[in-house]
């Protein structure tokens, strides 16, 4: 056997964490140069501007009258838009995360390198979560600045809310990664994710509300803890309203329940995503 001695000897055998970090680093560079990042930046900036603008238009007096403190004010500001922003951003960053490898010729570039699929998947996942988180912080910065202006303070619970938002981003991203593993076409993965996150979840939640069933299996329901954590004492798990002959019970998740829902989505979806990605061959369309 003819032995070959190359200068590659001095580089040693790479570990998977290092590979994951390299994939993450270049994925962040990749995302930052894509049009979709610019589009997401504009969307989140617009949503933030709209939230801030409405509050400013309504005025300090009205806002302070309706929201007795910083925590309630921030919760009110984020409750309508944050989950939407997170869903859209996760769909656009995660909806094609693995299909770009299995459904396009890019797979032949990366998969022939000394890197395991788990490192590719996790590197991409952390890159997508990192950028989505950075974008969502813009929305937090907007409402925090307004709270400082109106109340002269920002509730310390905002940091807990940011952590919950990170968990929600992680859960949405995992689900988007799962869709990207299922669909071969990257564009379909993104579109399907947007439809599920923005439309399907809301429709199901609405139907369950009418039927007074707790939507404990819906991610957006669990995600409500992102704003609940700002003012945990105001959370009422079940509220029943009587409308003529009917009674409707609406639910708010317990903090532990919301975290469990988000945690379950995150781990199960990411695990399934990896299993599918692992067995799928590169087959460009």
């Amino acid at each position, binding site marked *: 056997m003819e032995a070959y001695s190359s200068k590659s000897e001095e580089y040693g055998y790479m570990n998977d964490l290092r590979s994951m970090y390299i994939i993450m680093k270049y994925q962040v560079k990749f995302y930052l*140069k894509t049009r979709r990042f610019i589009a997401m930046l504009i969307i989140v900036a617009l949503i933030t501007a709209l939230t801030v603008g409405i509050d400013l238009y309504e005025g300090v007096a009205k806002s302070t009258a309706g929201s007795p403190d910083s925590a309630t004010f921030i919760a009110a500001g984020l409750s309508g838009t944050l989950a939407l922003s997170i869903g859209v951003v996760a769909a656009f960053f995660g909806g094609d995360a693995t299909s770009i490898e299995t459904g396009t010729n890019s797979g032949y570039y990366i998969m*022939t390198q000394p*890197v395991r699929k788990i490192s590719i998947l996790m590197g991409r996942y952390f890159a997508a979560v990192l950028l989505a988180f950075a974008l969502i912080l813009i929305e937090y910065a907007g409402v925090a600045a307004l709270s400082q202006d109106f109340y002269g303070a920002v509730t310390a619970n905002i940091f807990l809310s940011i952590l919950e938002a990170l968990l929600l981003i992680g859960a949405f991203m995992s689900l988007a990664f799962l869709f990207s593993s299922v669909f071969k076409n990257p564009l379909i993965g993104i579109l399907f994710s947007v439809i599920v996150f923005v439309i399907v979840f809301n429709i199901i939640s609405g139907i369950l509300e009418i039927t007074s069933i707790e939507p404990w299996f819906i991610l957006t329901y669990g995600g409500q803890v992102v704003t609940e954590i700002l003012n945990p004492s105001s959370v009422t798990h079940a509220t029943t309203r009587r409308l003529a002959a009917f009674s409707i019970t609406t639910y708010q998740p317990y903090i532990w329940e919301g975290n469990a829902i988000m945690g379950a989505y995150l781990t199960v979806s990411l695990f399934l995503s990896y299993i599918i990605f692992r067995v799928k061959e590169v087959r460009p369309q």
Partner: protein
Amino acid sequence: MSIDMKIEVSELSKIYGKFTAVDHISFNIDGSGATAYLGQNGAGKTTTFKMMTGLIKPSTGYVKIGGYDIIRDRKRILSGIGALVETPEPYPSLTVRESIMLVGELKGMKKKDIEDHIENFGKRVEIPDPSRKVGTLSRGQRARVVFAAAFLNDPSIIFLDEPTNGMDPAERKIIRDVILDWKKDHMIMLSSHLLQEVTDTCENIIFINHGKMTIQDKTREIERRFNSKSVRVQFIDPVTLSDIQRASLPSVEKIEEESTNSFILYFDGNLENKAEILNQCLKIGRVTSYADYESSLEEAFVNLIKEKQ
């Protein structure tokens, strides 16, 4: 990480439902040099390359590279080899430099060594400006970037699946020169449709037809076995067709007149007869050129396919 220059393929098959893409292929390659993997479109060349680089798992059999199993030790093997399979596309938003850096870093190289590779090897294969985005490059330019990335970390074995696909003749020459130089102390396995490219660069050939391996031998041996059965003879002065017909040319069955001083002669391929035909032609007039009309490898290729059918 270094890998011994040894490839062992045993009873390798890939079955998709009822379709057998690769059917119990076995071969061994040892040491430096270039080996061509030849076959028609759909013969199973790329599928074999994919199994050899761990992109897909075999249905039966195994691949060992440098003594390591591609399924069990895939990462170890890929650290020491270079692979260009199908038409790889770096991410369009990354620059040429970033695309090569990504691969180099995954192979565990130091940044300075990757920069040196971009500077030296990149210059040799004429990669485009490293600050350009990959998405703005032509197909040939992208192919050269991918080619440069495959040679990162001085790999002991390089798999090149149709490396000159989409390249113009000038680009093909650059790649051919690199292969000729590199194969002196590295192992190269190359698949190509361009038989001239194979004749110029590879000393060993493996033929594959309908997923089955038909022959593995030295290029010269195969050319010798499948002697050319046509020659082109060119004279300095005009010669008439009847002059050729009157000459006693052994085993010549058909004559084609290309011009007044150029003719194609079809014979039985026997080397004695080929020599005698030249002798007779020299009696007709002054000969400026006497050469095989079709590449003998091309003929071998066609014959092997016919044999199988």
